[in-house]
């Protein structure tokens, strides 16, 4: 499923404009330790993290993650947003918690 359709279905706010919305999401991954994410997340994952600083974009770029999802209303830092737009990485925001995001994603991706 494309990021755009995914965001619409789960009623998430897209913070990065039109950038990267045609990327394909194959599954969801949730973790807040960057080294762990680096060695376990996969290409085309949607990644849920409460981290909001700029290095999440570097990790997403290196792993070819489809989009970053900020759960529970976590705010984004301005530098992160700028870097995400530059690198074509969509960032989505929602009030749902990580469990609910993963559960609902499973429902729509299966």
């Amino acid at each position: 499923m494309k990021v755009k359709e995914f965001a619409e279905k789960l009623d998430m706010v897209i913070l990065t404009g039109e950038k990267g919305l045609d990327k394909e999401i194959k599954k969801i991954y949730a973790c807040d330790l960057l080294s762990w994410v680096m060695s376990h997340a996969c290409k085309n994952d949607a990644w849920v993290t409460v981290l909001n600083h700029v290095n999440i974009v570097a990790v997403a770029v290196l792993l070819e993650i489809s989009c970053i999802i900020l759960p529970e209303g976590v705010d984004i830092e301005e530098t992160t947003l700028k870097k995400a737009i530059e690198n074509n990485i969509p960032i989505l925001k929602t009030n749902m918690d990580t469990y609910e995001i993963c559960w609902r994603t499973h429902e729509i991706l299966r």
Partner: protein
Amino acid sequence: MDNSLKLHYEIPGDDFALAGEASSNVKKILTQLGVNPAIIKRVSIAMYEAEINAVIHANGGTAEVEIDSNKVTIIIKDEGPGIPDIELAMQEGYSTASEAVRELGFGAGMGLPNIKKYSDNFEIESIVGKGTTVKIEVWLKP
């Protein structure tokens, strides 16, 4: 590729906004060269971890990257405090990162073990008070 491609990067200290730039750039080049994506992922992870280590622990450093038809060689060098006990530093879960750095999602004590895991050859040299040099080699051919 008959000739090797040599790249040099400055890794700025304490600038998380730029940390990962060198690894991202190397990833782009390897992609353009048509290298197998699974190998690119290993190079990216190993180099990113080494780059982050230089930023977190050593106020930055340099990265020398050489790509030839057989392998990618990455040498990341810093003039930081050095590592007193490398064996201890190599243990998963051991970290000397500050609380502030941990809050950013780093400092899990997985950096060096990850580098070793994803390299075909890994060498580390460190002198306390002088700095640390990490050499990563990843073969491009099976």
